[in-house]
């Protein structure tokens, strides 16, 4: 089974590497933007996986860090466009701040949230993300609820041009690989061992003398920083920044991606993000098709009810495929994690 799994994941990564080439060859540029979204959400889901999958910390507020990362780009653009501060469009600066600001926010939020456990932790992370959500809605200067349309994207000078969909795609791909490599090194380091250990038996680790709170906090901060990178990419991909990306339902979507792909595995979140967006894209068409096959009437609107299938599907995955897609590849069914 391991062979199939490695082969499949390799194939997915390889396939993702050639998406722009194929899409441009068959003249279907839409697939470049669709798959860029997948890569961006794969990074966000991977960052959540660090705390959720490896650390056992169920953060229900990761959309906030995604939003913070994208607002770095949005606010930079705003000042470049309105106040003539050209330097505020600098892509390297955006990228750096999109790591630092969400990372710092995560450290701060984590410092308070990690004092709690279980459902209290789920809810306090949610509370903080709701606070940020309402904060940005009230921030009228940067568009408030209307958001900001980005007429210029992050500027990387001669190095690359993000207006070119393919270049943006490969930036996202490169960052995803970098993130995965970093996470791989991290979870297999001594630091990672402590974070993972704290998930299963925190008391024992504390007894041996590990300050688990500090380890968990640092993991939470790193997770926020990586999620900020995804936000940076998301802003450049959608050429738009808005509070709706910070809504709590979006945090729920990220959790779904992690679980769908497989918690606590390196590539699980990537598979989850790809699977999630594939379902979002093709489930409506599939339902329309099924409707036609069974001879239903007005099948055009059948696809609009796709969430009616998606919801129960989610329940089935929770009930019967705990390992997610990655678990299925390893031949694990039922309740194995």
């Amino acid at each position, binding site marked *: 089974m391991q062979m199939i799994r490695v082969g*499949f994941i390799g*194939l*997915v990564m*390889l*396939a993702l590497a*050639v*998406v722009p080439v*194929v*899409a441009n060859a*068959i*003249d*279907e*540029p*839409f*697939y470049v*933007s*669709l798959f860029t*979204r997948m890569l961006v959400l794969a990074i966000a889901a991977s960052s959540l996986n660090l705390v959720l999958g490896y650390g056992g910390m169920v953060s229900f507020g990761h959309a906030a860090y995604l939003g913070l990362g994208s607002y770095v780009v949005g606010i930079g653009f705003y000042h470049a466009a309105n106040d003539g501060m050209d330097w505020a469009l600098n892509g390297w600066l955006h990228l750096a701040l999109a790591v630092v600001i969400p990372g710092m926010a995560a450290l701060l939020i984590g410092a308070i949230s990690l004092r709690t456990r279980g459902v209290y932790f789920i809810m306090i992370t949610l509370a903080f993300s709701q606070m940020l959500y*309402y904060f940005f*809605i*009230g921030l*009228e200067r940067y*568009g*408030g*609820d*209307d*958001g900001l*349309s980005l*007429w210029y994207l992050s500027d990387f000078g001669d190095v690359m041009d993000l207006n070119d969909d393919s270049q943006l795609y490969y930036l996202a791909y490169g960052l995803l690989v970098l993130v995965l490599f970093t996470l791989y090194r991290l979870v297999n380091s001594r630091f990672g061992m402590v974070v993972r250990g704290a998930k299963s038996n925190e008391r024992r680790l504390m007894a041996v003398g590990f300050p688990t709170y500090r380890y968990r906090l640092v993991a939470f901060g790193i997770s926020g920083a990586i999620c900020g990178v995804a936000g940076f990419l998301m802003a450049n991909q*959608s*050429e*738009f920044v*808005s509070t*709706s*990306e910070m809504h709590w339902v979006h945090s729920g979507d990220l959790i779904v991606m992690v679980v769908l792909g497989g918690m606590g595995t390196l590539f699980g979140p990537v598979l989850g993000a790809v699977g999630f967006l594939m379902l979002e894209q*093709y489930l409506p068409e599939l339902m329309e098709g099924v409707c036609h096959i069974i001879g239903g009437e007005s099948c*055009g609107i059948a696809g*609009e009810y796709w*969430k009616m299938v998606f919801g129960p599907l989610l329940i089935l995955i929770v009930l019967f495929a705990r390992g997610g897609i990655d678990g299925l590849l390893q031949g694990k069914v039922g309740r194995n994690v």
Partner: protein
Amino acid sequence: MLKRTITLAAGAAMLATTAMAADPVKIGFVTTLSKGPAVLGRDMRDAADLAMEHIGARMGGRDVEIIYKDDEINPGIGKKVTDELVQKDRVDFVTGYIWSHVLLASYKSVIGNGPMLISANAGPSQIAGELCNEDFFSTSWQNDQTPEAMGEVLNQLGIKSIYVMAPNYAAGKNMVAGVERTYKGEILGKDFTKWPDQIDFSAELAKARAAKPGAVFVFYPGGAGVQFLKQYSQAGLKETIPLYTVFTVDAISLPVVKDLAVGSLATQMWSPDLDNAANKKFVDGFKAKYGRYPSFYAAQSYDAIMLIKAGVDAVNGDTSDKAGMRAAMKKADFGSVRGAFTYGNNNFPIQNFYLREAIKNDAGEYTVKTVKTVFTAYQDSYHSKCPMN
């Protein structure tokens, strides 16, 4: 995975090729079809379907196809489905758009990429001003115009003071700014309430009552409007302080709140009782087909399809002749349900605004009737920022 992707992509490419051979004019329609505001999307879709029926689904000698997409009131999703319409379905026109933020997010995906964009509702100031484009047309209004008309109504009625309430988001603030721009009396208090999930307005209503204003002005679109009207009436304010609204009392909320809204006044650029042939055909057709009154969302969507038809007809179906289509659309002579109007330099309508009163008619239906014309040929205040002429 790779194989699946390529098969899917190739399938879509093949579909695209066959579609070109059959050669219908393709219109993408982005609106909200899920969640609470799905009711607005339904009205828009029903109106567009009715327009298709009235024109026999033909424009300029070609068949016409409308592809509907759901934006889930989310600018990110709206942008994604717009990309899909432009890049994958390769539509000739994109229309719809209830929400300013969804339109703003999607604007760049359409403008400059081939298709023309017709907003059937949202009218953000940016697009009326510095971001205006020859490929963009509006069949609705600029956001500030309707409340500006309301401010003028309040002046004309000699109302000395008002209390203002609106949700705390960009359109809410635009509406308040609009009324402040034209209203000359005193504003006793302003409340921006939580959006979108405030359940209870009692705290704000109590303040409004205590302020003893000559009138209350509010903007609460969709479901929030129903909620507000109910609570306003239950608080006993309906009898004591007259209520003036924009985009709150319409064919969507009236059948729900019924008597609670009767008597309230609102400004709008269209009304179901406007006396012109196109409007009669539209309103009667809509009522006959769907058994209810159309809302202004519906009227604007109907007009959007008719405007597109005017463009495509003028070039005999040759949608590659964009200059020809633009010129024909700019004339605004397609027979709008609002009556005659013209387009300004920014392609937003220069049109009349009416004062409408919510009534219960002899047939027992809840609808609105036109009281008077507030503004004639009124243009938005952002057109001077638009570089086009």
